[in-house]
């Protein structure tokens, strides 16, 4: 019967020896400097206390941010910015810092800059936006109202980031007017800057490692360069400004006491090389593990073990067959036959007389015929309320034969 207790028992049986074994092997691995199998990926370390940005090289990230924003603030044009190799480095650091969303946005900004107008327009998913850009492509005219409309569509969430960037790049390619191109470039730079700032807040915000950096001046410089970028934007994101100001404040305070780290030994496996343990040391643990496992098996399988023992040990007292007031000779003879056969073929309380006969027939084929006669006579008398006078003598003689057969076998 599969019930929750059975499942708990099974789970205990399976896990307890494993836990005991692993705990002991870790305890005896005196120098677990390398806790993994050689060449096993090291990111498992991150699973113990993973936090985005924990493994990041902050100094490099901040340096790149500082340089990049300083260059934008100095008025670099869009094409120059997009082809800057530092942008790709920043993107990979963003990925390392766990900010995949902004890394993907940066990827879109860089890759769409090389596409043609037609490719860009075809990729726009929003029908309305696509038709607007197609109309502009026909006329070659990119009006301020069109740009405002697209900005509004993006800020209201009607169009996706991808569509927005595709639309801006498409309009940039279409436009023959220098003023319009300049306006679009500044929009694209704003999108790029916002993505980088958003990402930096995600990666740096609340990071303990940041406060532990020795070069706090670098933190301040990078944040200041981002703030400077935002300040020159007409509609700078207030959340970004607040976030950066908070970072600035935290960099001016003294580094906080590092939080207590729980050693990550736990259930970590020792390196393969440390498995060559001294047998003398390991023996007590192996014996303990084996003893516990055997105890558990005995505990869980006690029913089966006791029934197996019952089969190989001499019979105990005769089970009750409820024959107290039964006067029928045939019924009594049947149960006497069962008692006789019980030494050879066990009868379960849930077995019917026919099921028991089938088992006797298989186990003691020599007794098949006589026990069959007794069983079916019993059936007729017990369940069919048949008058037993005609059958009693025959059943008696069958019982005598059965005794002989069982005695011989």
């Amino acid at each position: 019967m599969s019930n929750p207790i059975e499942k708990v028992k099974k789970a205990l049986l399976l896990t307890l020896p494993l836990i005991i074994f692993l705990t002991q092997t870790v305890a005896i691995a005196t120098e677990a400097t390398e806790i993994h199998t050689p060449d096993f990926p090291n990111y498992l370390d991150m699973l113990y206390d993973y936090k985005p940005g924990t493994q990041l090289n902050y100094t490099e990230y901040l340096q790149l941010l500082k340089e990049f924003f300083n260059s934008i603030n100095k008025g670099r044009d869009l094409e120059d910015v997009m082809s800057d190799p530092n942008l790709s480095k920043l993107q990979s650091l963003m990925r390392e810092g766990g900010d995949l969303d902004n890394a993907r946005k940066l990827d879109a900004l860089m890759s769409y800059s090389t596409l043609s107008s037609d490719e860009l327009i075809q990729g726009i998913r929003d029908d309305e936006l696509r038709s607007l850009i197609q109309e502009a492509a026909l006329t070659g005219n990119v009006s301020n109202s069109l740009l405002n409309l697209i900005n509004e569509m993006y800020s209201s969430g009607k169009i996706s980031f991808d569509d927005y960037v595709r639309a801006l790049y498409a309009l940039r390619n279409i436009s023959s007017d220098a003023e319009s191109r300049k306006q679009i470039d500044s929009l694209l730079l704003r999108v790029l800057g916002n993505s980088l700032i958003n990402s930096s807040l995600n990666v740096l915000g609340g990071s303990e490692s940041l406060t532990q950096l020795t070069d706090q001046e670098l933190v301040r410089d990078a944040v200041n360069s981002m703030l400077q970028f935002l300040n020159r934007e007409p509609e700078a994101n207030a959340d970004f400004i607040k976030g950066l100001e908070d970072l600035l404040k935290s960099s001016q305070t003294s580094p906080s006491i590092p939080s207590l780290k729980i050693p990550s030994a736990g259930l970590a496996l020792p390196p393969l090389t440390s498995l060559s343990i001294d047998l003398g040391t390991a023996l007590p643990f192996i014996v303990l593990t084996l003893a516990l496992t055997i105890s558990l098996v005995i505990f869980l399988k006690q029913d089966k073990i006791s029934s197996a023992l019952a089969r190989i040990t001499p019979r105990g007292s005769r089970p009750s067959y409820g024959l107290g007031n039964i006067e029928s000779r045939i019924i009594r003879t049947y149960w006497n036959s069962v008692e006789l056969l019980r030494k050879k073929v066990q009868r379960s309380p849930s077995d019917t007389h026919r099921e028991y006969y089938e088992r006797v027939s298989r186990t003691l084929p020599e007794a098949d015929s006589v026990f069959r006669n007794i069983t079916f006579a019993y059936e007729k008398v017990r369940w069919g309320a048949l008058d037993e006078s005609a059958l009693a003598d025959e059943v008696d003689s069958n019982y005598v034969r059965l005794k002989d057969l069982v005695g011989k076998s």
Partner: protein
Amino acid sequence: MSWALVLKKASEILVEKDYEVRLIIASLLAEGHVLIEGVPGIAKTLTAKTVAKLLNLDFKRVQMTPDLLPTDIVGGYVYDARQGSFTLKKGPVFTNVLLIDEINRGSPRTQSALLEAMQERQVSIEGQTFPLEKPFIVLATQNPIEFEGVFPLPEAQLDRFLARIESTYTSTEGLKRIIKEIDQIEEGFNALSPVMGREEVLESIKEVRKVRVDDSIYDYTVRLVEESRKHPAVKLGASPRAGIALVRLAKALAYIDSRNYVIPDDIKSAAKPVLSHRIILKPEYEISGVNSGKVIEDLLASVEVPKP
């Protein structure tokens, strides 16, 4: 009356369907209905037709579809232009053996109309009641693997079926025999002549009621029903109706076995077909692979049979 001959004749046509035929005949004699669960193409229709033909009973088949209306089953009054009046057109329910294919494809309204006919053994058309001819048995089939476009029978309606048969594929040898001998099987079916008639079936139904049931058999049945409610995997155990059905089917099985008394083995044989569709399991057990068949096996293995 030789029911053994009916079983033998059926086994000459139907390959490895002895269990199904035995249960269908037992259900017919116990005045119950049968739900046959099985995938398409395993001779469910042929089994029903063979039983009807051997017993010389009228047979009709209805293929359930979502747009089938209750009047398509029970019938209704239709306008006769020649006579200028409405005349009664009886539906397929007016038969002895009614095969309902894919009952769970029918709308709940149509299912209810049918199940009402099964329970009451009469139908009402335009306020007029028409009793159904005896014997009357519904053999409803459903595909256990279909979940889309079906209306599963509610528990209360499933309880109306005396027995549920899980019809399975034949063995490899059986399949080979079917494929090899399909022409002979079809010819054999067409040439099949009745072994008995309607009157003899009705007489047998009366005799089944007289089959002796020892008091300890009732106790055993009660213990099985009560234990089914205590099983850890069971959310809803067997109902009193299930207990009644258990004894009724056991009596019919005993009768087919040429006995006029029930033995515990009959109750055990009836347990799975009678209880399997009436026991509702807890979802966590169902997910872990426990089914009602397993629960019934547990019950039969744990409840003590009557002694001495």
